[in-house]
């Protein structure tokens, strides 16, 4: 199929010109998803998808092109933490096997209203806890660039679907980097918006004060379209931002500053490089790709300068206290009483709880629940949870201070490229703390999460492996709150000047 790796913008033209119908497009992706070897999807329901497709085709034919929503008729796959009525929602866990939600997540409804056609549910780490998608209770997801490697997580399935041409776009969620990191490892573009932009209604909760939903697609423009449809004030979510709705694509292609010109569209823009993000912690390959990307940005007129984010290291333990704490409470509702897995071995109420939960929660989830209970327990609350919330404020203040000197922060997403399934990332810091290696790889993404700031990842290069694979490297942008439109415009300029985002994996390569 010729469209599989096309961005949404191209598919829009194809649909509008009649080159392909909504149903044909949906069928092509459904065919790609059928028997796919990457573990990207957890649920498909072709009949339902085609029904949606026919409805959208109808709408498309009735609506004049200039009045059509940019997303009308375009397919999307939803991370399996968004509840959907038509597809089961598992959150990657056995405790929700076959769970049928009576309502749709708000973001799902909004994308459906914008005309997107749902292809199914994407694989993810269980309850969004993890950075590798190995923690899915169903199956791991595999990186299409080298299927022996992780795709990243927790929105691994979503990233894989887009990277492997199984879906042109996906939704993901980002609590500590779960959109950005898999996007980086799979060579696609993804954005975590400002906290509160997208309603959390219908999002299976992991860490309430950190969870944010966002788009994952092939380009910044695609992400801008999707974010415009996903975002918006929702009274059902008390943490939803009461800001007027925005067209996040409105600045695309426009001059970024007064000093900007066609050759130097980024002139006048100051990009901060946190010294802590450019330390010896990042691998040489990542450093190299980053440096080349920065050269491109400078070539486009941007000024780079060093900024200081002193609490970068501390954001790790702060996050790994706050997130498990909130999760331990959020996951208490999974008790086998009203829905979800109930152990057949239970003899009384207590064993019903313990057996159901222990049987159906994976080890990573159990680990985080236990840690979360610990840091909230009597006598430890002040030293851990409360202290972590104070450090969180320090981290946010660091960013505020940095943004006094620059417009956006640039840096790596992950210190290394995708590692092998079953392995740990090769990090300096992990040498002393092997048990914490996977967590330590989140060091660059946690800051924006704790501060609630918008942040995105876009492909900026590759690492070539000895085995002849190319492993994507992602460039992270972090912006002041509410600056998504400008950030996406910046990313768009980078993508106009480069073609990393147009690269596709070589599928004739080794598959294990």
């Amino acid at each position: 199929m010729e469209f599989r790796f096309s961005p949404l913008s191209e598919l829009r033209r194809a649909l509008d010109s009649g080159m392909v119908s909504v149903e044909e497009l949906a069928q092509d992706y459904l065919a790609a998803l059928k028997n796919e070897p990457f573990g990207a999807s957890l649920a498909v329901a072709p009949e339902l998808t085609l029904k949606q497709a026919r409805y959208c085709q109808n709408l498309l034919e009735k609506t004049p092109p200039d009045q059509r929503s940019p997303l009308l008729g375009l397919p999307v796959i939803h991370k399996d933490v968004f509840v959907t009525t038509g597809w089961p929602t598992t959150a990657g866990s056995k405790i929700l096997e076959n769970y049928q939600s009576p309502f749709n997540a708000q973001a799902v409804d909004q994308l459906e209203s914008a005309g997107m056609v749902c292809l199914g549910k994407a694989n993810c780490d269980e309850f969004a806890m993890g950075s590798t998608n190995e923690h899915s209770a169903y199956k791991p997801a595999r990186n299409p660039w080298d299927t022996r490697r992780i795709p990243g997580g927790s929105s691994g399935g979503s990233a894989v679907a887009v990277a492997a041409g199984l879906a042109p776009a996906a939704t993901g969620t980002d609590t500590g980097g779960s959109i950005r990191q898999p996007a980086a490892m799979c060579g696609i573009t993804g954005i975590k918006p400002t906290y509160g932009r997208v309603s959390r209604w219908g999002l299976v909760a992991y860490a309430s004060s950190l969870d944010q939903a966002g788009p994952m697609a092939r380009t910044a423009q695609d992400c801008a379209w999707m974010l415009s449809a996903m975002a918006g004030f929702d009274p059902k979510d008390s943490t939803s931002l009461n800001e007027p709705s925005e067209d996040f694509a409105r600045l695309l292609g426009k001059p970024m500053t007064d000093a900007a010109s066609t050759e130097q569209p980024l002139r006048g823009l100051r990009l901060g490089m946190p010294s802590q993000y450019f330390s010896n912690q990042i691998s040489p390959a990542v450093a190299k790709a980053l440096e080349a990307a920065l050269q491109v940005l400078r070539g486009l007129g941007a000024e780079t300068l060093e900024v200081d984010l002193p609490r970068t290291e501390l954001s790790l333990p702060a996050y790994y206290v706050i997130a498990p704490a909130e999760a331990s409470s959020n996951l208490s509702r999974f008790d086998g009483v009203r829905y979800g897995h109930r152990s057949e071995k239970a003899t009384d109420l207590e064993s019903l709880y313990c057996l159901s939960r222990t049987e159906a929660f994976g080890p990573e989830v159990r680990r985080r629940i236990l840690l979360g209970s610990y840091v909230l327990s009597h006598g430890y609350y002040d030293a851990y949870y409360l202290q972590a919330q104070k450090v969180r404020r320090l981290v946010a203040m660091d960013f505020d201070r940095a943004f006094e000197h620059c417009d956006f922060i640039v840096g790596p997403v992950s210190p290394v490229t995708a590692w092998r399934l079953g392995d740990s990332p090769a990090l300096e810091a992990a040498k002393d703390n092997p048990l914490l290696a996977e967590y330590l790889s989140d060091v660059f993404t946690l800051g924006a999460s704790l501060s609630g700031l918008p942040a995105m990842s876009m492909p900026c290069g590759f690492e070539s492996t000895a085995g002849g694979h190319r492993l994507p490297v992602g460039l992270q942008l972090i912006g002041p709150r509410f600056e998504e439109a400008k950030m996406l415009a910046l990313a768009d300029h980078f993508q106009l000047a480069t073609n990393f985002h147009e690269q596709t994996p070589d599928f004739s390569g080794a598959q294990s």
Partner: protein
Amino acid sequence: MTTWEIVVGLETHVQLKTRSKMFSPAPTAFGAKPNTQAHPIDLALPGVLPSPNLGAIDCAIRFGLAVGGEIARRSVFARKNYFYPDLPKGYQISQFELPVVAGGSLSFCLSDGSERTVQLTRAHLEEDAGKSVHEGLAGLAPQTSGIDLNRAGTPLLEIVTEPVMRSAQEAAAYARALHGLVTWMDICDGNLQEGSFRCDANVSVRPKGSEAFGTRCEIKNINSFRFLERAIEYEAARQIELIESGGQVRQETRLFDPDRDETRSMRSKEDAHDYRYFPDPDLPTLLIDEKTIDQVRQSMPILPKQARLKLMEQFGLSAQDADLVAASREALSFFQKTVEALPGLEPTKTAKLVANWMAADLSTFLNRSEGLGYGEAPVTPLLLASLLQRLGDGTISSKIARELFAQLWQDPKQTVDGLIESQGLRQVQDTGQIDGWVAEVISANPKMVDEYKAGKDKALNAMVGQVMKKSQGKANPSAVTQALKSKLDA
């Protein structure tokens, strides 16, 4: 022998009279079929989020103002984490460190007329849990329970007193007064049977004079004032007996069994009582500004305390009488309407008369009729006024008036005058008739006459009684007494 002092603190859960639940838009009516009044939020389905109810906050502010408490400018909803089948999320959204109301007090009268003021620690908002029903219900297999989440999420105001009460009677009187206040304010329907008003009593004992508090036990979920009093009495006695026989009181939760008239230990709901409170990340800080508080203040009705004072100043009622008349807005309205319908009589005398009738006959009959309030009494203010009119003008004696009251309660369509005429109940004032009866009684009771002459006033009352009997209650008692005295003293 040690003299013991009972120390009681009460925590009352008041179900707020809102249209929807505390954090979900589900309706709050009582008695619906199981699980037909539970929203996905109440069921804690994956992906739901709490949505706080403005009406509940309003009720809380209203209460805070009524008891003279401090309304928190910044208030936080916190999660209280524990596992129980009637608690769908595995945590209750409540308030921990920054409750919506702090302090305040409630004044009331005991049955002996003495006034008490109980200090409140705080009042906070939280959501109610669901209900479990046990085997015995048709269709439920043995060794199972059924969970109904209709009640889950209903707004509650938890009102906590300082441990300043010193008797079961005081605690019951406080509970009654609180019940009166919350129904007066219309923030609670006050229905005890439906569980709209539930008390937990914290009871401990200590030697009188001791400063330190003894170990306390909590008696949970009492929904009757009588049971509250009994439970506290039993528990205090149990603790005293335990200590006096060398034992130690163990801190535990207990339930009152009204059939056995005893408290017994409850199997603990949650282990280790580590609720791991933390501010709910789904609910940002609640800010209540001056403007909001003022708006609520403007819309408040006159408070029972103020109404009581007015009754005492304007009508000269005693504190105890004022307490009764102002026990509810309905009672006060009844009083006012009755007094208004008796303009001819002297105001303080009228007030006292009406108050007495409300305290005695009206209360008795209302208590006998389940669920009937002053607003639904068959004897309306106008009807009572017409009865009291005839009493006041001497047409009937008080004994007859009381009989007529009972008749009117059964058949309120009758008129007072109609009943008086048809039954010939006019009070006999005719001195001739009275003298006749008096003479009969004197001659028939020589012993009583002697006793009276020996100085025993009781004998006079006995003879008055005899005359009243002869007159079938129709004689004017004071005229009879007068006549007897003049004959006997002659």
